[in-house]
């Protein structure tokens, strides 16, 4: 396992902290003109998603975390696990509820997403920033209202619920920004 010194800390570096894999978000060097140098580091726990801040003495070392991102295709769910495949190698991974978390609500079977692996085990998945999904349920809108003001809830084919403009109808396909969970536009055939 590689060892990183605080001098090598930069955004995106994966390290082990309190036995959990973490990703460094920000590293601030704090040093009085006369006195001890510290690194104040903002870190995301990749298991829980929580962001914490932690101070290190400059020059201290930590273990690297064997964390990689792999593009995968979502295959299906058997109720307990969600199954994914690396398209190039056909290698399959099964992720549990904690790993797929909220992200799965943006994916339908065959969709491509990014899986984060820790020691070759699924840690989390990230959907594409934008997905296109059909609407399965929403109140009938008012004809002629194209302003988009107000809006109404709509259920998508994956089960996710987003707010859409009033003119959107059942069966239409819309584009959604998964980072904020918001409607972007109607997708024309």
């Amino acid at each position: 396992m590689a060892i990183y010194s605080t001098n090598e800390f930069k955004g995106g570096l994966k390290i082990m902290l309190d036995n959990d894999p973490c990703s460094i978000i920000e590293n601030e060097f704090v040093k009085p003109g006369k006195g001890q140098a510290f690194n104040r580091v903002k870190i995301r726990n990749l298991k829980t998603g929580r962001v914490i801040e932690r101070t290190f003495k400059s020059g201290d070392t930590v273990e690297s975390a064997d964390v990689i991102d792999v593009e995968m295709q979502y295959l299906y769910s058997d109720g307990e696990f969600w199954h994914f495949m690396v398209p190039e190698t056909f290698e399959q991974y099964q992720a549990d509820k904690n790993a797929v978390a909220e992200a799965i609500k943006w994916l339908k079977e065959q969709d491509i997403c990014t899986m984060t692996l820790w020691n070759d085990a699924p840690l989390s998945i990230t959907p594409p920033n934008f997905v296109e999904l059909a609407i399965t349920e929403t109140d009938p809108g008012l004809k002629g209202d194209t302003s988009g003001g107000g809006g109404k809830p709509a259920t998508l084919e994956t089960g996710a619920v987003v707010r859409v403009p009033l003119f959107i109808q059942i069966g239409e396909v819309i584009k959604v920004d998964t980072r904020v969970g918001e409607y972007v536009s109607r997708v024309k055939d």
Partner: protein
Amino acid sequence: MADWRPACGLQQLRIRAQLLAETRRFFADRQVLEVETPLLCRATGTDPQLDFFTTAYHAAPYRRTLFLQTSPEFAMKRLLAAGSGSIYQICKAFRNGESGRLHNPEFTLLEWYRVGYELPALMAEVALLLQTLLAPACGELAVRPVGYRQLFLETTGLDALQFGLADYRRYARESGFAEAADLCGDEPGLWLDFIFSHCVQPAMAGNLIYLVHDYPAIQPSLARINSRDPRLAERFEVFINGIELGNGFFELADALEQESRFDAEIACRRRQGLADVEKDGLFLAALQAGLPACSGVAIGLDRVLMLAAGVAEIGGVLAFPVANA
């Protein structure tokens, strides 16, 4: 590959030029002499907290090691001992490994010495200079002189001169810094550095010049110990918006005391496995010859420039920070 273009805008270059001109006018008006001393030095500081750059000088057939200065202090004190009177210098200083939002390993220092000044007079001059330089950007900045112990107490409820491990640990834990207990162990100096930089500095009020004086004597560096209270060093630091801008001393003139502090720092370097350094014999010889009673201060001009330009990172005021130097 790094970008060839400057990291900062042309406007920042202009503000830097103005700031330098203004600084030189300030000292010319006060008959303080501008001097230059070598950036390449035969000896360097012994401070275990400062890492330095080492260069190889080729004077065939000999090779000699020369260091890039971490501060012009020793050379300027040799000038003072030679009778220069009050002097100032604007120069580059180099500190290895220091890079971040407020640090670049090569940076611009303004350092000056006032012969015959006690610390309060020098602190007043520092405040006046900063008010002058920052007036266009910040308006009239108010000044708050405050003792280190007082400020520490106000912010944390802890006594900086009366170290109590249990109290310090509890305060750190309650402030969300549980890791401090491991980092600082039972070393009072480390605890003070940690709590001051993590809790006291961020809590400072904005747009106010803090002159924090009477530092604890644990790390006096090159400051004289207060003759009335040996727990204090005659040292101050200046801050604006929680950013440390400079550090000043009533200068230690006692050659024996200085040499024993060097020895202590060299011993500390050995314990920590840091590069061995030699004491600067010429500096010590100058102290033996006699340093006039004086106070001196060093100001990080790039950080002053950050305030003048309203920029949050030192890279925003440097033409070419280390990443694309």
